[in-house]
């Protein structure tokens, strides 16, 4: 069976946003519990045309970020990441460890593993929520951490996703702490085309090609 080149319709796109919204609700709740500070999120956006534009959409992408990248496997496969501007990463480290590295070259195993843990918790809560809703298996592979320009890391994730899988779109949104909004992060998820079709058909919204 060949892969249909058709784009997703409006109903499918809004279902994608809704599914991401539910997954992210669980993820931000978990981050709030981990850090002891409330988190909220913007409504997810979907980029379905030019994935090479995504690195430009994550805030000030030319600044230093700390990011955690987690491919996922199972019935539904794909790529997901949370990336934090450096000052927000410093805040997360301070909440979790009581102190933070002075600069990118000072990120040691402890700081890196704290970021891996943040990734694990966000990731597993996001995937579990969607998995429970659709009865499809989705499980994380070990997370990877980068300390670099936001553009470098997000571009690398998009390239990896496009190289490895047939992908149709990316879901992205911003998360932020309450009440200050000073600690922000950006969420990115690029499911495989086949995995996304499976989710949409389970939800009964996959339009016939």
């Amino acid at each position: 069976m060949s892969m249909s080149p058709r784009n997703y319709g409006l109903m499918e796109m809004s279902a994608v946003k809704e599914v991401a919204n539910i997954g992210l609700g669980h993820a931000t709740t978990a981050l709030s519990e981990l850090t002891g500070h409330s988190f909220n999120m913007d409504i997810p956006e979907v980029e379905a045309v030019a994935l090479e534009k995504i690195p430009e959409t994550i805030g000030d992408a030319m600044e230093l970020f700390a990011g955690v990248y987690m491919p996922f496997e199972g019935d539904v496969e794909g790529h997901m990441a949370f990336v934090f501007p450096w000052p927000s990463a410093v805040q997360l480290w301070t909440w979790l460890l009581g102190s933070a590295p002075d600069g990118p070259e000072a990120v040691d195993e402890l700081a890196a593993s704290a970021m891996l843990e943040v990734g694990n918790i966000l990731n597993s809560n996001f995937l579990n929520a969607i998995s429970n809703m659709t009865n499809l298996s989705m499980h994380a592979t070990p997370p990877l951490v980068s300390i670099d320009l936001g553009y470098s890391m997000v571009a690398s994730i998009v390239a990896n996703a496009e190289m490895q899988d047939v992908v149709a779109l990316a879901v992205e949104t911003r998360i932020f702490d309450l009440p200050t909004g000073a600690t922000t992060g950006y969420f990115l998820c690029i499911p495989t085309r086949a995995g996304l079709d499976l989710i949409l058909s389970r939800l009964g919204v996959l339009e016939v090609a």
Partner: protein
Amino acid sequence: MATAQQLMVGMADIKTAKSGATFTCLGLGSCIGLAAFDRESGVAGMIHIMLPEAFKDKPVEKAGKFADTGIVAMLDEMFRLGANPSRLVMAYAGGAQVFKFGNPSSTTLDVGLRNSAAVEKILKAKGFRVLGIDIGGPNGRTVTYEQATGIIKVRTVNGGEKVLCNLKG
């Protein structure tokens, strides 16, 4: 003297100029920034390559995204500006693996390595002189190429800035 024209070369972009441009590839992770120059006509170009080769089963929407289609497209543009493709000199940087902490599973491809190999193969096959290469490693790069001086600089988050080479010789 006109002031230098700043050309941002975003992912999958191809930029070319007859003279006076400063090209910048910001935030190269696994991507590759490739600069080319014709010393006789002065025409220069730069491309921000994302993947090694175009997918066989998908239409190419942006030639600059792939090494195979992108390098050819950049040469065409430079040719139209008066460059002679047979006498171009080149340099490239990028192809890093920026996710350096954690244990990558076997399914995580090293796209940077593949991009580097693809660019090397294409340039070798076409017989271009390559004056500078800075690829691989764990750090992303920002590459600037000043057409007037020929100087290519590479900056990383940890390592500061260094001169890679001079395309004017």
